[in-house]
């Protein structure tokens, strides 16, 4: 587990190292400590996040390099994945490449007996309710996709950190979110570690792979990059 800035920096450091041939294509699973909000690179931070509230509860906030929406990353409520590899290993089409990688999530959930399906552009749903969202970037022949799989959902905390008008924090709105979003715990008794292990199987099925630590090069580079992700200039750029 890392803080939000290091998590984003590690993705970018791995991408750089894979591009130069210093590291192999990487699948990564991680969590966020402390809990954090990440926003898409095209979103306005102040539009999406209650910054004072984040500071008040000790939650980080960070702008991602990828598009997509604002996400509350609960330390105990989700598993985040990243897949970082050469772009030509995946379909050229945006939606098809999302479909390919989201199918790894779907296979992982199937290992827990959860029947999920891909919902274009970038979601995985169970019974029409979102259980996983993803965001992808492509840069200099590399593809990075990261996404979350919801294990549990603290809607009240999520609403308190994401900027949603007060009338939306009514019981009616919370019920509405629960109608649109779901979580592993609604379908399975699996622990968070159980979800993690199922996702590993889903992502690695049919692949030649091994566990590996971060390299010294990746860690050193991530330390530098994390300062950029921590910076006001980056996070408040929109």
């Amino acid at each position, binding site marked *: 587990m890392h803080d939000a800035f290091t998590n984003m920096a590690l993705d970018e450091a791995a991408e750089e190292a894979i591009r130069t041939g210093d590291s192999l294509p990487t699948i990564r699973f991680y969590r966020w400590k402390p809990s954090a909000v990440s926003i898409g690179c095209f979103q306005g931070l102040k539009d999406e996040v209650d910054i004072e509230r984040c500071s008040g509860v000790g939650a980080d906030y960070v702008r991602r390099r990828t598009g997509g929406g604002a996400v509350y990353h609960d330390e105990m409520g989700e598993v985040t994945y990243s897949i970082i590899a050469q772009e030509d290993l995946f379909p050229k089409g945006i939606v098809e490449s999302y479909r390919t990688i989201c199918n790894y999530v779907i296979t992982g959930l199937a290992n827990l007996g959860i029947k999920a399906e891909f919902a274009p552009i970038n979601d995985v749903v169970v019974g029409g309710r979102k259980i996983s969202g993803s965001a992808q970037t492509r840069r200099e022949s590399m593809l990075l996709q990261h996404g979350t799989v919801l294990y549990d959902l603290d809607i009240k905390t999520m609403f308190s950190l994401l900027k949603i008008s007060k009338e939306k924090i009514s019981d009616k709105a919370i019920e509405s979110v629960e109608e649109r979003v779901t979580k592993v715990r609604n379908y399975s008794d699996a622990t968070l570690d159980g979800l993690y292990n199922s996702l590993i199987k889903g992502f690695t099925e049919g692949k030649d792979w091994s566990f590996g630590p971060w390299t010294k090069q990746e860690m050193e580079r991530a330390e530098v990059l994390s300062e950029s992700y921590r910076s006001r200039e980056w996070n408040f750029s*929109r």
Partner: protein
Amino acid sequence: MVVKGFAREKVKNGKLLYVKVDHDGTVINHIEILGDFFIYPEEGLGKIEKGLVNVPVKRDEMIKRIDRIVSSGRMELAGIDSGSIADTILKAVFG
């Protein structure tokens, strides 16, 4: 006189799109396009915003300009398109 406009649209079968635009009623002076959409490469959004400055607030002209920038920059848009951007700008300017 510069007027500030704002509009928010959920694109049909797409993503949320926010537009903050400074205009004089006829042309765009400054624009910020925000939302949970995707543009590849991501730097493309800045080019679209810059390219829309001084463009008349007319649907066809805005679409033509955006399409040209997207094409020349070999960009891909997901969850939004030139039409939805133009429509949201029109809503921000004219309500």
